[in-house]
C-alpha cells in the first residue's frame, strides 16, 4: 500500500505535464485554423484588387494578369468624394465623440449630483433600443435642417455624436479605478477640475482614451444604414460603404467587382494603420505606484 502511495503521485505528475502539452497543441491548432478561415477573405480581396484580365467575379483566386488598373479606375468614379465624406465624418465624429464621452465619464465618475444614478440608469435603458428606431424622425429633422442628400456629411456627424454621451460605461469604469485622492491632491496643488482631467486623469487613462478614439472612428467609418438613408441616393452625399455597395448590383457587378475590391483595400488601410499605431497602449498598465501598493 505504501509503495502505491509513493509511486502514484509521480505518475500523476508526469501525466499532468503530457496532458497539458496535448491540450496546448490542440488549442494552438484550433487557433491557427480559425485565423486562416478569418484571413482568407482578406487575402482574396487584396489579390482580386490587382486582377486586370476580367472585371467581374471569377472562380479562381490568383490573378492571371497583375496591375493597378482597378485602383486607377477608382479615381474616375465618385470614389474620392465618398472616401473624403467618410473620412471627414469619421474624423470629426472621432474627435467630438471622444471629447463628449471622456467629459461625460469624468463627470459621472467624480462628481456627485442629484439624479446622477437615475440618469445613468435611464441611459442604460435608452441604450437598449436600437438606433434604427429613430431613423424616420431623424430624416425628417435633418431634411428640415438641410442636412440630407448632398449635404449628408454634417447630418451624419450630428447623428453619430448625438447619443455619444451614452457610451460612457467603459471609460467611467476605468476612471473609477484611478484613486480619487489624485484628483484631490491636484486640486489642492492648484489645478481646476479641467486641469485635473487633462493633466492627471487622461495621461493615466491612455488605453481607454485610445479605445474611445478607435471606436468613435470605426462607427462612422463602417456605417451603412444611416449613411444610405440620409444620402438618399445622391452620390455626392454618400460614404464609401453606400457608394461602393451599388457596384455589386446585378447590372454593375460584371464591370466593377475588381474595382470594389480595390476600394475595399483602400478603406481598410487607415483603420489598419490606426490600430497598428495604437495597439501598444491597449496593454499598458499605468497606475502602478500612485498610491500605496
Amino acid at each position: 500500500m505504501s509503495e502505491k502511495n509513493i509511486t502514484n503521485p509521480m505518475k500523476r505528475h508526469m501525466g499532468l505535464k503530457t496532458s497539458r502539452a496535448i491540450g496546448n497543441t490542440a488549442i494552438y491548432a484550433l487557433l491557427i485554423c480559425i485565423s486562416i478561415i478569418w484571413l482568407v477573405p482578406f487575402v482574396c480581396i487584396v489579390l482580386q484588387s490587382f486582377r486586370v484580365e476580367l472585371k467581374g467575379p471569377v472562380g479562381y483566386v490568383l490573378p492571371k494578369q497583375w496591375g493597378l488598373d482597378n485602383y486607377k479606375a477608382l479615381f474616375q468614379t465618385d470614389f474620392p468624394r465618398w472616401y473624403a465624406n467618410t473620412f471627414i465624418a469619421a474624423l470629426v465624429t472621432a474627435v467630438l465623440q471622444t471629447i463628449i464621452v471622456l467629459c461625460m465619464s469624468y463627470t459621472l465618475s467624480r462628481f456627485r449630483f442629484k439624479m446622477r444614478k437615475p440618469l445613468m440608469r435611464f441611459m442604460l435603458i435608452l441604450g437598449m433600443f436600437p438606433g434604427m428606431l429613430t431613423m424616420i424622425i431623424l430624416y425628417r429633422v435633418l431634411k428640415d435642417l438641410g442636412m440630407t442628400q448632398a449635404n449628408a456629411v454634417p447630418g451624419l456627424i450630428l447623428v453619430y455624436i448625438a447619443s455619444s454621451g451614452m457610451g460612457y460605461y467603459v471609460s467611467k469604469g476605468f476612471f473609477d479605478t484611478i484613486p480619487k485622492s489624485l484628483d484631490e491632491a491636484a486640486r489642492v496643488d492648484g489645478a481646476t477640475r479641467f486641469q485635473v482631467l487633462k493633466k492627471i486623469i487622461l495621461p493615466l487613462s491612455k488605453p481607454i482614451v485610445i479605445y474611445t478614439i478607435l471606436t468613435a472612428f470605426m462607427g462612422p467609418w463602417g456605417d451603412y444604414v444611416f449613411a444610405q438613408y440620409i444620402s438618399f441616393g445622391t452620390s455626392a452625399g454618400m460614404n464609401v460603404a453606400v457608394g461602393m455597395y451599388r457596384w455589386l448590383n446585378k447590372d454593375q457587378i460584371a464591370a466593377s467587382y475588381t474595382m470594389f475590391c480595390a476600394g475595399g483595400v483602400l478603406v481598410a488601410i487607415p483603420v489598419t494603420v490606426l490600430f497598428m499605431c495604437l495597439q501598444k497602449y491597449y496593454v499598458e498598465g499605468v497606475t502602478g505606484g500612485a498610491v500605496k501598493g
Partner: protein
Amino acid sequence: MASVKLTDVKKIYENKVTAVHDFNLEIADKEFVVFVGPSGCGKSTTLRMIAGLEDISDGTVEIDGVVVNDLQPKDRDIAMVFQNYALYPHMTVYDNIAFSLRLQKMPEDQVYEKVTNAAEILGITEYLTRKPRALSGGQRQRVAIGRAMVRNAKVFLMDEPLSNLDAKLRNQMRAEIILLRQKLDTTFVYVTHDQTEAMTLGDRIVIMRDGIIEQVGTPTEVFEMPRNIFVAEFIGAPKMNMIETELVRKGDQYFVMPFGTPIGVTGEKREELLKKNVQSCNIVLGVRPEHMVLADDSDDAIPCKLEVNEMMGSELHLHVYTEDETRLIVRIPTINLSMDQRKSLVFGKELKVTFESKVMHFFDKETQKNLIYGD
C-alpha cells in the same frame, strides 16, 4: 503662515448622518495642531473641510481672517499630504514636486531651484528622475511632503501621513516632521489616530469622538488633566486602568476604596477635591499603568494575581486581576527589579499593587466627567 478659525462647523451627509457637530477651534499662526481620535470620529472630515475637499454643511472656516467656505481648494492657499501619498504615477518625482509651481506659471529656473532645494532637505535628490512606482513607501511619503513644501502655503494639512509606513519608518518620519516643522515655520493641522504621534508632534491636541471635540489642550494637559474617561483612556499606552469604586469624604479627609482597600487621598488632589467641594459618591478611579507600583505587604495595597507578563525590553507590562476579576495593567521599569524578582513573575503569582494619591484621576460614574477638571 496664517491662523485658522472654525466656527460652529458641521458636516451632515446626504443620508442625514452627522459626521461633525458644531466644531469650534482657533488655530494660531504657526501652531501645530493635531486632531486625534478613533476611526470615524470626524477628524479627517474636518481636515478635508478646511482643505475644501468636503462641503461645509454649516458654520464657517476662516483662513487668515477670510471665510473660505465657498473657495475652491486651489484658491485657499493650502498644502496637503495624503495618507496614501497620492503621487501622480505618470510623472517623475521632479515633475510631481514641480506640478503646483508650473500651474502657477512660475519660470522654469525658479521651479528648478525650489524643487532641488526641497529634494535636498528631504534627502530625495537622487530619486528626482524616478517615477513614484520605483520608490519605497518612506521615499514616496517624502515626495508627497516635498510636493506640499514647495508651495509655501499658508496652512499645511496632513491626513494620517504616516499610517501606511511600517513602525520603524514611522518613528523616523515622525522625527523628520518635527524637524520639517522647525524649518517651515508655518501653521500645521495634522490628523492621526495614533496618540503617540499626537503627543509628540502637537503643540495642541484636539481629541475627537463621534464628531464632537472631547478635549483641546497641550499634550501635558490632556495627559495629566483628562476631562473625561474617554480622553483618559485614549491618551497613554497601555491605557489607563479604570476601577469602579467609591469616594468617601469624612470631614476634610478623602478616601477611595478600590476593591475594599481604603487608600487615603492626600496632597494636591485632596486640596483640589476640597476646592470643588466634592462629596462622597460613586466614582471611576483612573490610574495609569506606569503609576502603579508593586507593594510590599502593606495594608493599603490591592491584592491580585498575575495573569500575563509582557516583557517589553526596558519595562514589564504585568496584566493582573483582582479578587473580583477586574483586569489591571502595571507597568514597571525592568531596571527596578532584580533578576530573581523578574524570574518569579510567573502566571498565578500573588502580588500587591498600590499607587499614590497624586496620580489618581477621579471620574463621575454617571457623567464620566473628571471631578476636578471636568468642566
